[in-house]
């Protein structure tokens, strides 16, 4: 499975995703420039955290017009795995690959800490190595992570089991229904504010994020055929 990590101007968790996949999971991974127009040959794509285009206007709002985005959308429409964390999640919602939007945190402040999460749906490409309703802890680090969607959309998300992660203790940003991560209806596009790539080595304090990448590598393209 060959994975692309997209580098937008202002991405800064690209190295984190890359090394989680390359150094820790021994995966076949390559950086791809935002200027690329094709993702041919890649089986999955990851959008890293950071401040693409300085987060000017709205987080992710300008990145969605990057040259590479049509290729990302094409790959998503082919049912291949697309993963976005933090700024990557914001870009996925701005690009319409995931419903809803991410507002400024209720506190109006950036927040960096490790928070408890519930794995709500362990039956996605990205979560099969977790137990259902398992509690894990992952770092968050964002200023605009308050998930918003209208009631109807939220109800649909719940009904379709699209809510994958929920904040399990204090809600750190004001996200509606404590939503921390969602998949699209088809189940191949995951966006989440927490950073699993920051929790893959014991030396750095936690390995709770490792199984997300292992799930994806194990499930690969198999499940996407469904």
């Amino acid at each position, binding site marked *: 499975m060959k994975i692309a990590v997209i580098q937008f101007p202002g991405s800064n968790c690209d190295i984190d995703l890359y090394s989680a996949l390359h150094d820790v999971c021994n995966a076949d991974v390559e950086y791809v420039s935002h200027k690329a127009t094709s993702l041919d040959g890649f089986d999955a794509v990851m959008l890293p955290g950071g401040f693409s285009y300085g987060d000017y206007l709205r987080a992710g709002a300008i990145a969605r017009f990057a040259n590479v985005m049509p290729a990302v959308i094409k790959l998503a429409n082919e049912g291949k795995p697309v993963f976005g964390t933090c700024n990557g999640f914001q870009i996925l*919602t701005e690009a319409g690959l995931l419903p809803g*939007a991410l507002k400024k945190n209720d506190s*109006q402040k950036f927040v960096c800490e490790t928070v408890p999460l519930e794995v709500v749906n362990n039956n996605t490409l990205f979560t099969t190595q977790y137990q259902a309703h398992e509690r894990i802890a992952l770092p968050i680090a964002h200023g605009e992570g308050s998930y*918003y*969607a*209208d009631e109807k959309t939220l109800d649909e998300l719940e009904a379709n089991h699209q809510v994958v992660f929920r904040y399990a203790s204090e809600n750190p940003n004001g996200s509606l229904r404590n939503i921390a991560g969602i998949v699209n209806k088809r189940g191949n596009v995951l966006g989440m504010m927490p950073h699993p790539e920051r929790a893959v080595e014991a030396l750095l304090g936690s390995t709770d994020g490792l199984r997300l990448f292992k799930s994806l590598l194990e499930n690969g393209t198999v499940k996407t055929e469904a």
Partner: protein
Amino acid sequence: MTTVRIYVTYKQSVFDPQAESVLNAIHQLGHEEVKDLTVGKFFDLQVEGDQAAVENTVKEVAESLLVNFNIETYKFEVLEAK
């Protein structure tokens, strides 16, 4: 050349904690008579073309880039037409 100002705000239904805290601050200054407040941003665009073309451009720019319809809404006004 026409100068157009586009205002972008959260939709009414979307909770805006920033507006809440600014309103609180205003009340702390003693201005209880201020009952509500909206926070938003505006963009001044200098656009070429006739009125219809300008409006078209403005709508397209607002709806494709400046506004996220999941949470935001917008309006615009012509400030100056030369």
